[in-house]
């Protein structure tokens, strides 16, 4: 699809205006860069330290990828089990909701205590915060199947598994992708949070180190990198969605 420049222009203009105001304020007020550095400094220093930042970005990306994959596998399995068995639904749903009430602040140090300073506790935190929207996306999607559609398939002699594979599963994909897009925006933050608690490398620990040495400019540079990763992953998820379920967008756009 061609995205006309006019559609991204307002966002770019707003960002430029904010940056200009920020730059002007820091210069006019003479505020110390340890407190609030101007965006130009963030850019220059961030660029100067790009090698270091990149070496801290890679572990974060790895943790995010592993944790998110884990959440997709577990979330999908849980959703299918919930869809097939009422007993599983009754048993699992309260546990799922409760898992979202767990304060990550409290659990992350425990995970580090149990699994060490390696990649495992970070991936688990990512999985913990992304598992729920993925599962709920699937479950809602499965449940949105019309009764008449299942009836039609049964009239054709379909087994329960065939009804699931041919109607419930494809029909649930739009809802699953909605859940996935919400989940991916939590994923990177989850990894960075876990790194804050205890890590050798990663953007989270990088931010903490720079904060301790009053390099506010580098902290903000790392925040920018984090945001960029989140946006990129979100766009990638949307692109994947368009590739996997082209019929969904096409049929919606004609309805407008």
């Amino acid at each position: 699809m061609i995205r006309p420049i006019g559609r991204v222009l307002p966002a770019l203009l707003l960002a430029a205006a904010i940056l200009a105001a920020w730059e002007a304020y820091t210069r006019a007020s003479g505020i110390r860069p340890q407190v609030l550095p101007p965006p130009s400094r963030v850019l220059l220093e961030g660029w100067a330290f790009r090698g270091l930042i990149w070496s801290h970005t890679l572990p974060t990306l790895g943790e995010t990828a592993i944790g998110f994959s884990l959440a997709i596998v577990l979330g999908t399995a849980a959703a299918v089990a919930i869809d097939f068995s009422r007993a599983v639904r009754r048993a699992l749903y309260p546990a799922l909701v409760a898992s979202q009430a767990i304060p990550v602040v409290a659990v992350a140090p425990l995970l580090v205590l149990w699994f060490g300073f390696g990649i495992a506790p970070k991936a688990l935190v990512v999985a913990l915060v992304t598992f729920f929207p993925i599962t709920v996306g699937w479950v809602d999607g499965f449940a949105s199947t019309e009764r008449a559609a299942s009836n039609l398939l049964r009239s054709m002699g379909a087994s329960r598994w065939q009804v699931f594979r041919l109607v419930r599963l494809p029909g649930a994909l739009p809802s699953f992708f909605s859940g996935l897009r919400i989940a991916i925006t939590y994923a990177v933050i989850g990894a960075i949070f876990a790194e804050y608690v205890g890590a050798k490398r990663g953007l989270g620990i990088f931010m903490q180190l720079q904060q301790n040495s009053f390099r506010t400019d580098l902290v903000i540079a790392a925040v920018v990198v984090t945001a960029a990763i989140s946006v990129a992953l979100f766009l990638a998820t949307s692109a994947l969605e368009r590739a996997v379920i082209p019929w969904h967008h096409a049929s919606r756009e004609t309805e407008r």
Partner: protein
Amino acid sequence: MTPPRLLVRGIHKRFVDGDRTIEVLRDVALEAGAGEFVSVIGPSGCGKSTLFNIIAGLEDAGAGAVHVDGDLVTGRAAHTEAFAYMPQQDLLFPWRRVMDNTTLGLEIRGVPRAAARARAGALFARFGLAGFEEAYPYTLSGGMRQRAALLRTVVQERPILLLDEPFGALDALTRMELQEWLAAVSSEFGWTVLLVTHDVREALLLSDRIVVLTPRPASVAATIAVPLPRPRALEVLADRAFIEAETGVLRALRAGSAVPVDGSGGGR
């Protein structure tokens, strides 16, 4: 004497909804010979779709029996195999191309893909869908969607077709076109059809016999024969026998509803 293709006897059905019980069908009976076209007509919400679900084996009846070619099928595993069912909504799946929608029933039965596509493909021209095999359903007009849904139904080659208001959602002009078309193809292929409709003229144009149901709880108010050769074209509307049958159907519909017709509680 050979038994009728379809024989439905003594169907009762009630739904329990919390502490409320809704009696929907009360002793409904009907039959259709091979190659016969029978319409079921009745006020909205009287239980026509429920009756079809029971005949198709998708829903259990409180009492009653469905026989196909003399064999009792109610409650048998083979029940659904006698029927090809077209539900009230077209239910074309948006993620399947038109061809893949129409071969769905064959796919479920395990017919190889190439054979299934060949069988459905042979019907596309007669159903006015040639050239749309690889299109997605959202690109079809309302009339084409209904024809695609009907193609998906008939390609299963089951002995009896159950069509639940196939033209209910269409505009008057398209509906008339499709009625004439269905009149022609159903005689051409010799289908045995049970059709639900609200539309008295549609029933008269298409059917050998019309079963008129009362408001809920539905029972058979009258069965009216239409003594005209099929297929019929719209010109038949002026025929004397047509007008007599129409009067009979309208009378049965009115006699059935002691309360005003729109007080039947159905809503769509």
